[in-house]
């Protein structure tokens, strides 16, 4: 069953939602150091594994595509790295 929500209440709902979200933001400014550190590592791994267009993949390895193509791309990489526990 779907209950139709009166449009007239939307502004008050939005205002209330925004105030709740502001409280949430204020309380979430700091995370425990280890959490922040693990997020930082995850970010670094993701950035290292990012997808690049072929021409940039080869350029980032310091040269043009060789006769055998950009073979380093298939060499795996940080994508498989998981959290160190």
């Amino acid at each position, binding site marked *: 069953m779907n209950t139709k929500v009166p449009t007239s209440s939307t502004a008050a709902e939005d205002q209330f939602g925004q105030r709740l*979200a502001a409280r949430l933001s204020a309380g979430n400014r700091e995370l425990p150091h280890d959490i922040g550190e693990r997020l930082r590592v995850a970010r670094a791994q993701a950035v290292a594994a990012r997808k690049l267009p072929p021409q940039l993949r080869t350029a980032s390895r310091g040269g043009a595509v060789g006769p055998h193509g950009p073979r380093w791309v298939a060499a795996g990489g940080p994508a498989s790295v998981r959290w160190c526990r």
Partner: protein
Amino acid sequence: LATEQELSDFLKSVERRAFKRSVYHVRDEEAALDIVQDSMMKLAQHYGDKPAAELPMLFQRILSNCTLDWFRRQKTRRALFSNLSDFDSVDDDGDFDLLENFVSPTDSRETESAEDTTRRAQVFHEIEEQIAALPGRQREAFLMRYWEEMDVAETAAAMGCSEGSVKTHCSRAVHALSKALKAKGISL
């Protein structure tokens, strides 16, 4: 094409909220970290060659999907249904009065005492509890719409539902939160 720095900056800007959002959903910090890590990796691996402007929407969508995947991987029926089966849940907010729990927006932070600070922390934790207790789709819509500050269309796209559904989920979430906080004697 987002540069490496843009991708890194983007991830840095969203990772903490993404983590907390995941914690609210799965109530497990380790699982939340895995979800965020998977989301970051998928974004980078599959969409790292997209323009920077497209990253926020893509990431929100990936984060939602990774969260759903986590639930799907859970073997217990209870875990699944207590968090995800509320797509079509019927909420009865009949006797609710939003404005009753909504006081003046003027704030007096400058006069906050230690007692006020403690009270503020208590309120924060209570808000977290109540958000975590929301039905999954309501929580997701609420957090995207108000915490991530996405508009209705963006939220609908990220959640894979209609704008009308987003509005309904958000409205029900706000009403449920207001009612629950009011019951705890908390006014915002």
